């Protein structure tokens, strides 16, 4: 019996163990890749959401509308704008007391 034939069983078992090890490693890498893809998708969604949120604060349209609401005017219009400090609002008019007397009579 040749040495190869004598060790065939051991080689066979070793090859099977190697195969099993490869399978386990493959599974591990698969799971890692799938997890990374899920993370990537979440990152894409988060980035898009963040971009939209940022645009709602500092996007051109948001800034333009904010400036308008804040009373800002384009520079060429500045000479036509009269800066006026906010005036004092008059005090609230107190509600005068009723000038009449209400009498209720209960008939028994």
């Amino acid at each position: 019996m040749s040495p190869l034939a004598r060790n065939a069983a051991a080689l066979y078992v070793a090859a099977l163990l190697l195969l099993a090890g490869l399978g386990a490693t493959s599974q591990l890498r698969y799971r890692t890749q799938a997890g990374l893809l899920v993370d990537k998708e979440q990152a894409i969604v988060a980035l898009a959401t963040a971009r939209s949120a940022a645009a709602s604060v500092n996007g051109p349209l948001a800034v333009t509308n904010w400036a308008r609401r804040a009373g800002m005017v384009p520079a060429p219009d500045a000479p036509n704008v009269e800066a006026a400090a906010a005036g004092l609002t008059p005090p609230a008019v107190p509600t005068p007391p009723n000038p009449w007397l209400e009498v209720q009579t209960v008939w028994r």
Partner: protein
Amino acid sequence: MAVKHDAPPELRLHRGALIAIVAVMPLVFALWGFASQQRGAPAWPADLVDAVPRGRIVTADGQVLADGPVDARRYPQGELAGSLVGFSGAIQPDGRYGLEGLEHTLDTRLQTGDHVTLTLNATLQAAAESRLAEAVASYEARAATAVVLEVGSGRILAAASWPTYDPNDWRTADVASMRNRALVQQYEPGSVMKPFLVAGLLESGRLAPDETVETPMTLRVGHKTFRDVAQHDPVLTVPDVLRYSSNSGTINLASRFESAEMHAWLAAFGFGQELAMRSAFTARGSLTDPARWVPQDHATIAIGQGIATTNLQLAAAYAVLAQDGLYVAPRLVEDEWTPDPYRVLSPETAMAVRSMLQHTVESSSLRSSAVPGVPTAGKTGTADVYDAAAGGYVAGRYAVSFAGMFPAERPEVVMVVTVHEPTTVTSSTLVAAPLFREIASEVVAHWAVAPDAPAWALGAVR
């Protein structure tokens, strides 16, 4: 010498089982390991696994208008240029993913993953949309549009339409708000057309700039009576015909043209012609066959009724006056092919008409259309709106416009604004002219040059 010991018969079965376990079980486990790879692993995100790459749509100043693969397409700027950008969705029978707007027209290019850079300036687009929204609300109008063109290059700096919508929420948006009105809404422009008639007459030698024209307050042509709105003298100079927007004066001037000649001149300015631009949906407007015109058609078209155009066409035509007589095809994408410019007017004629339009702004209540310190040339238009359902013009429904350019001596920008069917105020002088000034003011502010700087400086910084 090896001695062979046969196992007792009762143990032979055990030896077979042992061999089976040692030889077969690892194989079974290995195969099971490969076969069960997906068991317990997180699901692959379908929109990434099957992702079809798609290019970005970006403004000239770097704002991202559309981004992401087909199944995860996002529009970070929301409403900004929404009706222009459009949206994409599931693949269509023609192989496109784009369903509307630039997403549709630029689909082939976007599918290759190529990014598209528009000529739009996001700041000016935002300023225009913001002002249009205010105007629509203030005047309780149906819609409003504005186009800002860069003189010399034909680059569209802003193409704003209101109402608009957020492409991120296109499924819930009103279909009417999806119309890119600045490029596709055709309307009868009214008096903003008058300068082109004057330009054609000057160029063809049928009119001298210093001539006077009879301008009665009413003029009957065929079975139709045309009336002037603003009170004026019975005889006016040509610049004053434009200043008072005299219908009778314009019709008298138009009588110097045969219908075919007038048609040819209007076509040369691009009216009724297909735009060369292929990057977006556009409309060609309407300019009917002059062979079918009766005298009142000739007169009506001379004052801008009976002819339909879009804001983009009108801006491109006004740009001829700004570009010393050259017609430059407008474009929306930076590397888009456009045909070579062609000459419509001599520089002298273009400058003469520009000067008249500057006179129009500076000598009347239209001063409200000019940015302080920036000479402006322009013209108003108040046009009746044709209602196909009613079969005619409906009283009280107007499209009010202002078309102009600045700085007048050496224009850098041409702009056309239109408010469709305002209800609270219907005068173009009170509605369109101030709207023009507001957007123009934003443009000048964006240049970051003092308004009283020389004209060359106004255009030098952009």
